[in-house]
C-alpha cells in the first residue's frame, strides 16, 4: 500500500490531501482529466466525469495513463470496476470524427461503423445529418455542427472535432508588455499565461479564474494569440467600457479600433464589445441585433462572465462552432444547472485554479469572511412569523435591525473603502440615508455611475451603496470591505462575485473584509448558508459572530 495523497472514491470523486508532500505533483497529474469540485483547506475534491475524461482524450491523454496516475498516487487500492469504467468511458471518445471532406464539406466519419449506425438511428439527431456518403461517412450541415456535437455528447459518443476553426479576418493585435503611453512595463502572470496556452491548445473553452485575478488580460492575450477580429460579449455597458480601457492600455489596439455595440452606440469595428442585453433585445418577437454575429468574419468570440450567458445566446452560439470561443468566469455555477450547455457549446473547461492558490501567490487579496448574525427585535420577529411565505425572505433580509450593525462595521473600517451591497431598493435607500452615502442602482444613468465610481476610485468617496448592478464587472481596485445586507435568495455565484469586488490586490497588500449580515433564526440564515457553499468549497472559512460582538466593544463612552 503506497502512502499517496489521493483517495479514489467509488462515486468517482478523488480526495486529495493537500498537506501531503506529493500533493502538488499529484494535482498536476490529475488536473488534465479530473475536475476540481471543491477546494477547502485540507482535502480537495476532484471528480471524474465522462466529459472530463473525454477532454483528456482530446488533449492526447490515454486511458492507460489515467489509470496509471490513479494507481500511482492512490493511497488505497483502487477498485477494479472503477478502472474498467474509466477505460471504457475514454474508449468511447473519437469513435466518431467531424472532419472536413474536400468533396462534401463537413462530414461525420466513423472509425467504428456500428456506432455510426447507432447514432444515425437516434431520434435526437433527426435533421442534423445529411446524406450518407458511404458506409462510414455521413454529411453534416455546417450549421448543425454545434448542436450535433452537443447531441452526440448526450448520447455518450463524443465526436472528435477535426474540422478545425476558421481563422477569421486577420487583424494585428499585440500585448503591450513593454508599457504604452508612458505606463510601466508589465508581464502576463504565470497562471494567465498557462490559461491562454491551455485555451489555445484546445481551440475553444472556458477559463475559470477567481474574481480580480485578471480575466480581462487572459482575454487580451487570447486576442493577441488569434490576431484576428474579435467579438467580445459582456454583461453591461460599464463592464464593456472597462474592457475597452483595459484593452487600450494593455494591447497595441487604439481607441479607433475598438467599437462599442450597446443600447447607446452601435459601432462595429475590428474589435467590437457588445452587451448581452442588446443582443437579446427583441422587437416584435424577433432578435434585431443578431446580424452582429455575421457582421464581420470574427476570428474569436469572447464571452465575459459566461455563467450569466442568457438562453438566446446559447442558441446563437450553437451556430458559431467554426469560430474560436473563449468563455471567462470566476464561478461556473449556474443556479439553473446549465453548466453542461456552457461546456458543450462554448467548450470544455480549459483552465481552473483554486482561489486559495492564486491568493497565496499574491495575485488576489487575502480576504476574511464574516457572517454577522443579527437578532431581530420582538416586533420584527412577530411580523416575520406572520408574513406570507413569499414575503418572508424580504422581511428577514431587510430588517431595520441590520442598519446599526452595518454602521458599526463601516465605522470599524474607518480607513478603508467600503461597499455596501444589497438587493432591495427600499433597504438600499434606507441605508443610503442612514450612512449618508450615494447609491448606484439600475436606474442610475451610465454617466452618473461613471462619476460615482471615479470618485470612489480616487478615494474622494469612502462608502458606496450598490444594488445588484454591482454584482459584476465593476473594477473598484481599492475597495477593501464589502458588506452584504441582502441577496438574490441562495445564489452561490452572486456571493462569490460580491466577494470578488474586494479581491483586487491592494497597493499596501492589506487584507480585504467581506461581511454578510443575516437575521438569526430566519430563512435569511438558510439562504446565507447556501450562498456561502461555493466560497466555503473554495476554502474561504466564514467566521460567524453575533451582532452584539460587533456593536459591543464600540459602546459609546460616557463623558
Amino acid at each position, binding site marked *: 500500500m503506497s502512502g499517496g495523497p489521493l483517495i479514489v472514491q467509488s*462515486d468517482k470523486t478523488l480526495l486529495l490531501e493537500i498537506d501531503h508532500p506529493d500533493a502538488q505533483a499529484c494535482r498536476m497529474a490529475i488536473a488534465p482529466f479530473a475536475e476540481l469540485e471543491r477546494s477547502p*483547506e485540507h482535502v480537495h475534491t476532484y471528480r471524474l466525469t465522462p466529459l472530463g475524461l473525454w477532454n483528456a482524450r482530446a488533449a492526447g491523454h490515454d486511458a492507460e495513463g489515467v489509470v496509471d496516475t490513479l494507481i500511482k498516487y492512490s493511497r*488505497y487500492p483502487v477498485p*477494479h470496476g*472503477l478502472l474498467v469504467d474509466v477505460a471504457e468511458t475514454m474508449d468511447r471518445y473519437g469513435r466518431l470524427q467531424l472532419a472536413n471532406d474536400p468533396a462534401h464539406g463537413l462530414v461525420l466519419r466513423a472509425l467504428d461503423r456500428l456506432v455510426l449506425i447507432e447514432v444515425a438511428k437516434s431520434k435526437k439527431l433527426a435533421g442534423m445529418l445529411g446524406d450518407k456518403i458511404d458506409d462510414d461517412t455521413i454529411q453534416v450541415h455546417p450549421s448543425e455542427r454545434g448542436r450535433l456535437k452537443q447531441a452526440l455528447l448526450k448520447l455518450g459518443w463524443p465526436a472528435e472535432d477535426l474540422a478545425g476553426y476558421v481563422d477569421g479576418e486577420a487583424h494585428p493585435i499585440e500585448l503591450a508588455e513593454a508599457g504604452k503611453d508612458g505606463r510601466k512595463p508589465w508581464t502576463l502572470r504565470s497562471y494567465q499565461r498557462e490559461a491562454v496556452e491551455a485555451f489555445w491548445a484546445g481551440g475553444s473553452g472556458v477559463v475559470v479564474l477567481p474574481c480580480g485575478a485578471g480575466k480581462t488580460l487572459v482575454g487580451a492575450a487570447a486576442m493577441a494569440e488569434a490576431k484576428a477580429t474579435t467579438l467580445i460579449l459582456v454583461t453591461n455597458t460599464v463592464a464593456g467600457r472597462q474592457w475597452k480601457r483595459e484593452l487600450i492600455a494593455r494591447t497595441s489596439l487604439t481607441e479607433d479600433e475598438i467599437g462599442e455595440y450597446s443600447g447607446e452606440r452601435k459601432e462595429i469595428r475590428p474589435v467590437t464589445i457588445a452587451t448581452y442585453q442588446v443582443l437579446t433585445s427583441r422587437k416584435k418577437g424577433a432578435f434585431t441585433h443578431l446580424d452582429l454575429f455575421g457582421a464581420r468574419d470574427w476570428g474569436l468570440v469572447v464571452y465575459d462572465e459566461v455563467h450569466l450567458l442568457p438562453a438566446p445566446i446559447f442558441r446563437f452560439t450553437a451556430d458559431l462552432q467554426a469560430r474560436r470561443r473563449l468563455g471567462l468566469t470566476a464561478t461556473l455555477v449556474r443556479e439553473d444547472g446549465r453548466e453542461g450547455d456552457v461546456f458543450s457549446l462554448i467548450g470544455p473547461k480549459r483552465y481552473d485554479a483554486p482561489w486559495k492558490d492564486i491568493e497565496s501567490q499574491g495575485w488576489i487579496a487575502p480576504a476574511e469572511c464574516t457572517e454577522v448574525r443579527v437578532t431581530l427585535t420582538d416586533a420584527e420577529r412577530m411580523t416575520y412569523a406572520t408574513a406570507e411565505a413569499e414575503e418572508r425572505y424580504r422581511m428577514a433580509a431587510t430588517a431595520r435591525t441590520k442598519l446599526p450593525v452595518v454602521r458599526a462595521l463601516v465605522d470599524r473600517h474607518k480607513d478603508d473603502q467600503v461597499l455596501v451591497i444589497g438587493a432591495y431598493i427600499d433597504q438600499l435607500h434606507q441605508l443610503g440615508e442612514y450612512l449618508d452615502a450615494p447609491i448606484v442602482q439600475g436606474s442610475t444613468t451610465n454617466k452618473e455611475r461613471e462619476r460615482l465610481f471615479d470618485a470612489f476610485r480616487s478615494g474622494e468617496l469612502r462608502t458606496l451603496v450598490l444594488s445588484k448592478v454591482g454584482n459584476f464587472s465593476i473594477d473598484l481596485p481599492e475597495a477593501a470591505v464589502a458588506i452584504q445586507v441582502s441577496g438574490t435568495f441562495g445564489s452561490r455565484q452572486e456571493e462569490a462575485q460580491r466577494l470578488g469586488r474586494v479581491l483586487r490586490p491592494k497597493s499596501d497588500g492589506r487584507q480585504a473584509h467581506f461581511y454578510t449580515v443575516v437575521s438569526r433564526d430566519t430563512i435569511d440564515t438558510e439562504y446565507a448558508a447556501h450562498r456561502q457553499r461555493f466560497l*466555503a468549497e473554495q476554502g474561504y*472559512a466564514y467566521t460567524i459572530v453575533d451582532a452584539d460582538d460587533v456593536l459591543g466593544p464600540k459602546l459609546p463612552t460616557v463623558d
Partner: protein
Amino acid sequence: MTTSLADQLRTLPDESLAALLQLRPDLVVPVPADVSALATRAQSRVSVARALDGLDQFTLQMLDAARLTRDPEQGGTATEAILAMATAGPHPPAPTAVRGAVNKLRALFLLYGPEHDLHVVGGVDEVSPYPAGLGRPAAELDPRTAALCADPAKLRRTLLAAPPSARAILDRLAAGPPVGSVPPGALEAPAVGAEDILPPDATNGGAPTGSPIRWLVDNRLLVRVSGGKGGGTVELPREVGLLLRRDSGPLGPLRTSPPLVATPPREPKAVDSAGAGQTMEVVRHTEALLESLAAEPAPMLRSGGVGVRDLRRLARALGQDDALTALLFEVAYAAGLLGELDLTGSATTRYGGDQQVLPTGGYEVWRASSLAQRWEQLARAWLTMTRQVGLVGQRDDRDRPISVLSAEAERAGAPAARRAVLGVLADLEPAAAPTPDEVLELLDWRAPRRSRGRESAHREVLAEAAQLGVTGLGALTSYGRLLLADVTEADERGADDPLGLRSDAESGEPSTAVRALDALLPAPVDHFLVQADLTVVVPGPPDPALAGELEVVAEHESAGGASVHRVTTASIRRALDAGYSAADLHKLFRRRSRTPVPQGLTYLVDDVARKHGGLRVGSAGGYVRSDDEALLTEVLADRRLEPLAFRRLASTVLATPYQVQRMLIALRDAGYAPVPEDASGATVLARPKTRRAPAGVPASTRTFDPLAAPKLALPRLLGVVEQIRRGEAAARAARRAPAVVRGDAVRTGPAPVPGHSDALAVLQQAVRDKALVWVGYVDAHGATASRLLRPVSIGAGYLRAEDERTEMLHTFALHRITAAVRED
C-alpha cells in the same frame, strides 16, 4: 486372437486394478460383483463418457487416431500406427507426447491390450460417433462412392472440378462434424426448363451452378444418409475428408501443450491492488444491500424468488446495475446473510407464500468482523454456491423471466465451472492476465468435452470474479489464489475426512487468504478531518466506534476508500435527539479531528443546540385552566388534590396525567366548581343520564315450550339408527380381526414373501366374489394396521377397495400389504 477387456482385467495385479478404480471412481458405485461386471461397466456409455470428459484435446485426438487406425476385421491397432498417423501432418508432435497420451489412455483402459495389438473399448464409438470429425468409410455408406474413393486419381480430379461454393461446403464438413443437414428441395432437380433461370452464383464466377449440394451428391463426394423427399442429412465419406485434410494432417491441427497466453502479464502489485479495491467495493455494496433489505424486506414471489421490481429498487438504492445487485443478493443469500421469514398473521399457509427476505442473525456477526473476513465469507459462498446468477433476468423455457433466488437459476455444475475457470488462471504464472477468449481457449484445450456449450457460463464466471475482486485487471489475485487453493483443498480433504474432524475452520484462525488480503487493505482509522465547508473526511475505513458516531452527527456523502460526511443542521439536531449535548459534540469533534475545528461548525452546534427543545411536546390526561392565577395556585397547593399530581404548565394552566372524569370528581369533592370543556374550548354540560339495561326477548314471543321433548322425523331417526349399527359392526369387526392380519403373526413368521403372494390370491378371489376381506398392511410410517375391506379391483400394483366403516374408496399399494384373510 484378441482377449476381451474382462480377460485383460483379470490378469492385472491388484495395484493396477486399484489404480484404474482410482482414475475412474465411478466404476465402484455400486461395487461390481465380479471382474466381468466391472468390464461391462467400464465399457458402458456413461462411464466412458465420464472418462473422456476429463481428457485434454491432444489425448482425445490420439484416441481418435487409435480409432482411425483400427484394423477393419480384427479391430486392433498399435502404438506405432497411432504414432504414424499423428505425425503425418505438417507439424508433427513429439513422439514422446504421443506415447504419453497413449499410455494415459491405456491407464484409463480406454485402450487395452499389448502395444502391438491395442483395442478401443466399445463405449467410445457410442459416445462420439465420428472420430476426429471424420465420417464413416465410403464402403459403409454407398458402394458407388466407395468405387470413386478406391480410385485416388479420379477422386482428386472430381474434387478439383468442384465449383467454389461446393468446395466451401466440403471444407466446412471436412473440419468436422462430417454431417450436415440439407435444406428442403436442395437435392431436387430443378423443374424441366427452369435450369436456365437459375440465379447466377457469385461464388462461382457468376455462372449458375444450381444447388452446390446437389452437385456434390451427384458427383458422389457427399452421401445422403437420411431424409425424405424434402431435406435430409448428408455425410462426408472418411476418404474424402482425409484427402481434404492433407494440409493439416488427418487429425486436424495438433497441439501437445495448452495454447500460450499472448497478453503480457500485469504487475502483480497492480493486480492485487485493483482486486483489493474491488473487495472493498463488494463488501460495502453488500452491506448497503443488506441495510436496505433490513429497512424494507423484499417479498418472496409465490413462484419462488424475488421479483424484478424489488431487484430494481435495490439496484437503484445501491446505484449499481441489476446484474451486480442480483449477484450480491445471491452471494449474500448463499453466505447465510439473508434468509426468509414467514410473515406473521399471513393469510395463507402455502409454501413460499407471504415470505420476506431479510438479513439473518449471521449478518450481525459478519458486520462485526474485519473487511477481509467479510470478503472471504462472500467469496467462499460464491465459489461453492450452485447458482448461475447470469441467468437472472433472462427468460426460461416457458418464456418467463428468471428471478433472483428462484429455482430456475439453480445449476449443480456452477461450482465446478468456477473452479475450472479459476483453475486455468491459477495454473498460469502469477499476474498473467489472459483475455476471456484466451481463457476459453485454454479451457477448451484442457477438457474440450466439458467446456463445449458452456462458453457463456464461463464468461460469466470471469465477469463475476472481476466484480467480486477475486481477480484484478484480468489476473487472479494473490489472495484469490490462496482462497481457491484453500477451497479445493477442503474439498479434497472432505473425501477422506467426511466428518470434517480435521477442519481448521472452527479454530478461529483467519485463513491465509484473509491474512494476505488484510495486508493489502487499509487499516481502519479513528480520526477525521473537518473543513470549513462543514465536510468531515475520514481518510480511510472508519473503525466501528467512529462509524457509529458519524452516522449520528453527519450525513453521508461519498464512500469508497475514504468517506466524506457533511454536518448539517438536521444531522446536529439528530445527534441532540440521540442524547448528545452541545458540549459532547464539541468534545467529539475536538477529539476525533486531526485538524482544528472550524469556527463555523462550533457556531452551528451551539446555534442548533440553542434552538433544540424550544418547543416541548407531551401528553396529559387532562388540564385545568383558569384566568384566575390565584385560584390555580390554590388548587396546586391543595393537599387533598395531591393524588392528581398537578403540574403547572403556565401561570394559567395545570396539567394532570389523570382523566377528566376523575379530576372533576376530585375537584368537586374538594369544594371547587370546575366545568369541563371540549377540544374546541366549549363548555360541556353534564346532565346525569338514567341508566338502562339492554332489552331481552319477552317471554310472550317465545314459540315453544323449552321443556317439551324435541320431535324428530322418522327418516332422521332411521339414519341415526343406521349410524349406530354401523359403528357397532365396526367395533365388533375390529375385535375380530384375525391374528395373521393384525401383524404380530407376520412379524414372527419365517418369511413374509409367501404370506404376500397368498394375500394376492385371496384378494383376487375376493374381487371376483365381492367378498369382505381383512387386510393387514404397513402404512407410510412403517406401522402395521388392519382393515376390513371389500376389494373392487387390483391393477398397476394397487388395490382399490371399499372400506366398510367409512364407506370410502381407498387405494393401497400392493407391496405394502402383508396379509389378507377372507371374512367369514
